[in-house]
C-alpha cells in the first residue's frame, strides 16, 4: 500500500511541475495567479498523501490550514488585481 | 438586540462552530469542551448575521431540499470532468468559447451563491459575474451545447428555484448572446 501512495505522490509532483511551467512562462499576471492557485490545490492532496507515506498525522492539520490560506490568498490577490487596492 | 425570528440563525452558527471546535481541538476533557462551548455561544450571539442573513421562512424544508439537490450536483460534477477531459485530450480540441448573459428572478444571497457555484461546476460553463440586484449572470461557456443548456433548457435555474422556493425563471425576456 505504501508503494501506491509513493506512486501517487510522484504523479502529483509531476502535475505540479507541469503547472509550474504555466506559472513561469504564462503571459500576463492572471495566468500566473491561476497557476499558483492550481499548485496550491494540488499541494493539499499531496500533503494528505504524504501524511500516510511518512506516517505523521500532523500533516492533515497542515493540509487543512493550507487549504484555507490558499483560498484566502487567491481571493485577496484577485481583489487586488481587480481594484488596484485592497479596500 | 432582538432575537425573535433569528433563533434558527443563532442555532445554526452555534452548531457549526461547536463541530469545528471539536474537530480541530481533538481533546475531550471537561475543561476544553466547556470553554469551547462558551466561546461558540458568545461568537454566535454576536455575529450570527455574517452566516445566516435575513428572516425567511421554512428553513428546515429548504435544508432538506438542498440535501436532495446535492447528489444531482455531484453527478453533474462527474459529467463535467469527463467532458473537460474529452476536450483536453482530443487532438483537435473541440472548443468554441463564448460569453453569454441571462437574467434570473432569484434574489436571495444563498440561492445566488448556490447557482453560481453550480454553474461553475457543471459541464462547460463558468460564472464570471453576478449582479444581485437584477439577478443577472455573465457566464463563460466553452462550447455551443453548454451555452444552450443554460439559455434554452434552464434546468439548473429551475432546480435552484425549487430548492429555495423562489419564483421560477421568467420566459418572456429572451437571453442575449454576445
Amino acid at each position, binding site marked *: *500500500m505504501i508503494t*501506491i501512495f509513493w506512486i*501517487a505522490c510522484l*504523479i*502529483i509532483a*509531476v*502535475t*505540479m511541475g*507541469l*503547472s509550474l*511551467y*504555466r506559472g513561469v512562462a504564462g503571459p500576463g499576471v*492572471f495566468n500566473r*495567479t*491561476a497557476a499558483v*492557485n*492550481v499548485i496550491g*490545490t*494540488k499541494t*493539499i*492532496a499531496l500533503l*494528505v*498523501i504524504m*501524511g*500516510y507515506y511518512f506516517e505523521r498525522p500532523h500533516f*492533515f*492539520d497542515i493540509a*487543512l490550514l493550507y*487549504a484555507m490560506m*490558499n*483560498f484566502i490568498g*487567491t481571493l485577496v490577490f*484577485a*481583489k487586488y*488585481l*481587480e481594484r488596484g487596492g485592497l479596500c | 438586540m432582538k432575537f425573535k425570528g433569528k433563533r434558527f440563525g443563532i442555532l445554526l452558527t452555534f452548531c457549526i462552530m461547536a463541530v*469545528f471546535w*471539536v*474537530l*480541530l481541538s481533538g481533546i475531550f476533557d471537561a475543561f476544553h469542551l466547556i470553554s469551547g462551548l462558551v466561546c461558540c455561544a458568545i461568537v454566535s450571539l454576536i455575529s450570527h448575521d455574517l452566516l445566516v442573513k435575513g428572516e425567511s421562512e421554512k428553513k428546515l424544508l429548504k435544508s432538506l431540499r438542498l440535501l436532495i439537490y446535492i447528489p444531482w450536483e455531484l453527478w453533474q*460534477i*462527474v459529467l463535467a*470532468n469527463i467532458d*473537460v*477531459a474529452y476536450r*483536453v*485530450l482530443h487532438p483537435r*480540441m473541440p*472548443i468554441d*468559447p463564448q460569453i453569454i448573459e441571462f437574467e434570473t428572478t432569484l434574489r436571495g444571497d444563498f440561492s445566488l451563491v448556490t447557482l*453560481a*457555484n453550480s454553474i*461553475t*461546476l457543471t459541464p462547460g460553463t*463558468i*460564472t464570471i*459575474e453576478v449582479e444581485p440586484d437584477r439577478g443577472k449572470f*455573465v457566464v*463563460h461557456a*466553452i462550447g455551443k451545447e453548454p451555452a444552450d443548456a443554460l439559455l434554452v433548457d434552464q434546468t439548473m435555474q429551475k432546480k435552484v428555484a425549487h430548492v429555495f422556493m423562489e419564483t421560477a425563471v421568467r420566459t418572456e425576456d429572451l437571453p442575449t448572446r454576445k
Partner: protein
Amino acid sequence: MLIVHVAVTVLLGIGAFFLLVGSIGLLRFPDFYTRLHATGKCDTLGGGLIILGAMIYHLFQYPETLLVSAKLAFLIFFVFIANPTATHAIMKAAYKTGVKPWRLGEERR
C-alpha cells in the same frame, strides 16, 4: 482488507488522472478563460477523490482515530466550496480588467 485497498487504489488513480488532465489543459488551452475551465473543474474533483481515498483508507486502517477521518471529510467539503469560488474570483478580476476572451480562429495567447 483487500477490497479496501483496491478501492483506495482506484480512487487515487482516478484522482491523479484528473489532476493530470487539469495540468495538461492548463498547458494546451489557448487563453486564460479556457485554461480556468480545465483547472477549476478537474482540480476540484481530482483533489476531492484523492482525499476521499485517503479518508476511506484511514477509516479501515486506523479505526481508533475517527477524528482524523472527520477532518478529512471537512477538507473535502471545504475544497468543493472554496475552489469554484476562487476560480470565479480570478475570472471576475480578469473580466473587469478587460482581458479579451479568445474566439474560434484567433491566435493562441
